């Protein structure tokens, strides 16, 4: 019984302290919001999405994203908003462009070099 009461405290506390702050026009918008806040990194933290952070800047960014969704902004526009202000690293999934090319394909390049080295080594042996 005691355990059940303790557990209910845990579950109820998350209900009473989260959500209901953000109001959306539709369920789809709400889903978009929760997807987006998991894709945007907290600019103030070492690593963690703004969904997991209650740093002041993350709270502000969540409110702003909710506002932008209600104003009809697309996901891409919202991500661009965040990126223009906090840099490429604010997005967990960086876009492929000239500066992130090495980031995306560097590991494969490295793997290829190691693989080639391995083949040559065997031939010498």
């Amino acid at each position, binding site marked *: 019984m005691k355990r059940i009461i303790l557990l209910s405290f845990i579950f109820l506390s998350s209900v009473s302290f989260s959500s209901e702050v953000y109001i959306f026009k539709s369920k789809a918008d709400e889903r978009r919001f929760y997807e987006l806040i998991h894709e945007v990194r907290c600019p103030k933290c070492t690593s963690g999405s703004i969904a997991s952070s209650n740093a002041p*800047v993350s709270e502000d960014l969540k409110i702003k994203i909710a506002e932008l969704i209600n104003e009809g902004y697309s996901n891409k526009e919202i991500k661009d908003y965040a990126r223009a*202000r906090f840099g490429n690293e604010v997005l967990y999934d960086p876009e492929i462009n000239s500066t992130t090319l090495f980031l995306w394909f560097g590991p494969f390049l490295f793997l290829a070099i190691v693989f080639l080295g391995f083949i040559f080594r065997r031939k010498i042996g």
Partner: protein
Amino acid sequence: MKNLLRFFILIIPIGGILFFYNILTEDKFYPGASFKNTSVPQFELLSLQSKSPLINDDLNNEMLLNVWASWCITCRIEHGFLMKLKSEGITITGLNYKDEASDAIDWLNLYGNPYNYNLHDLKGSLALDMGVTGAPETFLIKNGVVLVHYSGEVNQGIWDKVFLPIIQDNEMFK
């Protein structure tokens, strides 16, 4: 073939050492600085002291915008340097960030006021629009364009290396 392999075994650590030596000793490497030349977003805030409304047109043509708060410890450390800049004739406008007006005014009365006036951004809305992640942060602004955005404490070293070159290039504060 064997020589090629030896060459690679040598070149990888040497390359690594050179790469990190380069990054760690580079004079221009300041993680807090960005130079993206964005415009100041539209805003409408109240003045901290006089409570009169302020908009973009009220900003000086050549100025520093300093994000600060009375709860911010590093702002207290930075404060002395801002007073020095003010005495050298540099216009500094304050962006008071997520702070109670009374606390902020007490802080200025206690330690001295380096600002010509302060925008009171209680909710942090302008700060968010400008990409502020905390306090202190400093913007160098000319005709509504942000030339330098520096996150962290501005001191003599940062001023000389990050701000002064841009100020000289743009012939500001003459």
